[in-house]
């Protein structure tokens, strides 16, 4: 290990530790770490329970080790080149260090992590293990070997051509699927592979590890794997020490192999580091990361519909963006289908019960349908993060938007149009199901048709309000990204935004007879909710109008 690199690592570690301690002064960071510490403390408090013992059964440990090893190998292979910090590229890559020295420097934080992980394992599971210290040390060594494998795979993958990398990726996935099936078959008796895979003819492939006399015992090879961790719980201390030496040898051998790797890591690491740094920056600035696979092959034509002229151009742009965001739309559609399918099934079961002579009053049926209708309305909330084709997509362009010849109110309405329409389109599927099976009265359908747009606009408004506030703070250099507490607040606000309408509807409705009270209550709800929506949109417009602090001016 080069002394200069070791000094650099220590200095950075010290700096990061100070930074971490200082960051705890921020309530949001402190809350996050308290949550993590509480969770660990909870597990530590209940560590003697049978459940904790189940987690260190040989089958579970084998599964964990398999996942760790295969995951490390695949992660490294997919990564294609190591990821460094940007200053590392500028200082280390141009300094007279050997590749081995830089790789070892890159591994030091991983070693520290492995030691920390071993300590946590020891603290949580020591009571269930016969030789806990040996077991924890073995875990540390195994984790270190996995880090070596991951690093080696990343360097190797960075040096091979793209088509070969693509083919090998699928080959690795196939191997993992086979390993997983074998593991599930042997450890948990889940038969995902044909039985011939454990037959003597297949085990011949493992000769001479499997002797000819052992061939008659089917499934011998997979059982080795599963019973490996038994040596720590059921054998003598000296045998365990021998196993520990085996792990140490494994870690040392993998390091020796890694440091002797001839593949050049610099070019691939440079590309990878730049890509990751840009991605981090975009996420930090609250922007989306565009996948290259989404690149279009041709442009859409100029629309002829007059609606898209003037401020409507924003709507057209958002529609194009939505059309290109296949992943988001696919997710939204899949979620809608699952969610609506569930409601549809509930409705169908209920209708069948009623048809088969089940006891129900017309009021009960109406309440059931209203409940389904409210569940359907909640879909707009659940789709908010996926259908964000509004201000949330235009983070980088907010300053440029200020130069467009539109009023802030017009621009805000245009921005909210596409996500609200998409939400309603998703809900339309459910409305169709309700109309088919729910035997709804036409008045209820009209109420739903009037209420759903109000709900969609209110929810979009709340989420955009949060985004614009965060963007204004970011531009003013006050905050980088939304914290967990802010996310919690936005969820709370998503419910509170309906409180005034609900309160007013109940207050009005209870002063009259039900025949008059219900329609009056509904009408009040609609009126108040649309007013709240209007206030939200105006607030958004004002916020957009006041969003002017430029990043470089600070």
């Amino acid at each position: 290990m080069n002394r200069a690199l070791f000094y650099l690592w220590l200095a950075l570690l010290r700096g990061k530790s100070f930074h971490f301690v200082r960051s705890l002064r921020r309530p949001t960071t402190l809350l996050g770490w308290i949550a993590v510490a509480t969770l660990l403390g909870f597990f530590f408090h209940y560590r003697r329970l049978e459940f904790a013992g189940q987690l260190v059964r040989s089958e579970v440990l084998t599964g964990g080790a398999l996942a760790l090893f295969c995951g490390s190998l695949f992660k490294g292979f997919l990564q294609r080149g190591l990821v460094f910090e940007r200053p590392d590229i500028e200082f280390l890559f141009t300094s007279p260090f050997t590749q081995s020295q830089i790789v070892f420097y890159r591994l030091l934080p991983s070693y520290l992590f492995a030691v920390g992980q071993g300590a946590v394992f020891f603290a949580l599971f020591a009571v269930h293990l016969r030789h806990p210290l040996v077991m924890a040390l073995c875990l540390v060594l195994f984790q270190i070997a996995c880090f070596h494998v991951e690093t080696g795979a990343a360097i190797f993958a960075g040096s091979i051509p793209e088509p070969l990398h693509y083919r090998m990726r699928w080959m690795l996935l196939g191997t993992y699927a086979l390993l997983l099936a074998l593991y599930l078959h042997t450890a948990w008796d889940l038969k995902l592979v044909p039985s011939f895979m454990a037959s003597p003819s297949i085990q011949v492939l493992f000769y001479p590890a499997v002797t000819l006399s052992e061939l008659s015992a089917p499934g011998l090879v997979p059982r080795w794997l599963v019973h490996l961790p038994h040596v720590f719980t059921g054998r003598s201390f000296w045998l365990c020490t021998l196993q520990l030496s085996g792990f140490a040898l494994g870690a040392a051998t993998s390091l020796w192999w890694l440091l002797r790797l001839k593949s050049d890591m610099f070019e691939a690491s440079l590309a990878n580091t730049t890509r990751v740094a840009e991605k981090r920056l975009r996420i930090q600035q609250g922007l989306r990361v565009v996948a290259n696979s989404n690149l279009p092959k041709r442009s859409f034509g100029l629309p002829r519909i007059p609606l898209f002229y003037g401020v409507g151009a924003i709507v057209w742009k958002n529609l194009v963006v939505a059309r290109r965001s296949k992943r988001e739309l696919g997710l939204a559609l899949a979620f809608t289908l699952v969610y609506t399918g569930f409601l549809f099934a509930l409705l169908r079961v209920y209708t069948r019960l009623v048809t088969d002579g089940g006891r129900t009053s017309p009021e009960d049926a109406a309440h059931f349908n209203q409940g389904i209708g409210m569940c359907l309305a909640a879909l707009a909330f659940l789709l908010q993060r996926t259908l964000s084709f509004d201000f949330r997509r235009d983070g980088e362009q907010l300053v440029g938007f200020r130069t467009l010849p539109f009023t802030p109110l017009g621009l805000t309405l245009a921005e909210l149009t596409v996500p609200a329409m998409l939400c309603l389109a998703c809900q339309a599927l459910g409305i169709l199901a309700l109309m088919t099976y729910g035997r709804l009265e036409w008045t209820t359908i009209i109420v739903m048709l009037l209420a759903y747009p109000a709900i969609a606009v209110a929810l979009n408004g709340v989420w955009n309000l949060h985004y614009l506030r965060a963007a204004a703070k970011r531009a003013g250099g006050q905050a980088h990204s939304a914290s967990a507490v802010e996310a919690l607040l936005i969820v709370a606000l998503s419910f509170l935004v309906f409180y005034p309408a609900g309160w007013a509807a109940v207050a009005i409705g209870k002063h009259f007879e039900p025949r008059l009270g219900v329609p009056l209550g509904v009408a009040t709800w609609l009126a108040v909710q649309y007013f709240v929506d209007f206030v939200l949109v105006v607030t958004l417009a004002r916020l957009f109008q006041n969003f002017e602090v430029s990043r470089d001016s600070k």
Partner: protein
Amino acid sequence: MNPAQSAVIEVENFARNYGDFAAVRDLSFQVQPGQIVGVVGANGAGKTTTLRAITGILRPTAGRIRVAGHDIEREPVAAKKQFAYIPDTVHPYDLLTVTEHLHFIALTYRVEQPEAKYAALLDELELDDKKDEIASSLSRGMLQKLSLACAFLRQPRVIILDEPLTGLDPRGIRNIKASIRRRATAGTAFLLSSHLLVLVEALCDQVLILHRGQKRTFGSLEEIRNLATLHADASLEDVFFAVTEKPEESLAELAS
């Protein structure tokens, strides 16, 4: 008065503060149709703040700004129809192609028969082979050209450029300089800020020199040379240093 001959940009006693810090103080100047005005100054002189205030991104702390006769604060929509702004760093829409950016501008500003203009514009700015590429995959220079294409498409009365030649190759710089000159001859006014004094000297009819948020001088290069009592073939660089290094007391004299 004929509106075509009145100033397209009028800045009167403009000031902008960030908290207690005065970024720009008491700035006044005008840009006439067909003029190319260069704004130069050291880092933090207030160039970008001035340009952003003219475009309505920042609100003035004091003073008045009019674009083609429309007050940017009182009639923002009418004013914004008259200019195009190209920032120093162009941020395109992630999932829109080059052509779709042009469509968007055409729809926004209701450009008549826009598609007939696309081919010539894309050819002029060497973007014709990139027209179906997603804008976020373009290089910085290409993005600058895309931004110029969007501005040229709608033929505004004034184009405001912040560091317009950043990231462009030598051919691109030459082409864009020629494009700017051609449009200026046709009557479009340009207001550009740049650190490249050679570019400003070669391109601009008028130069506005800002120093620590204040106007040091505004006029043609020849007028400024005379004010700074420099010889006739002194470059803008010589003029710039002579003007910005003058003592405070001579500031008012120069500005007047």
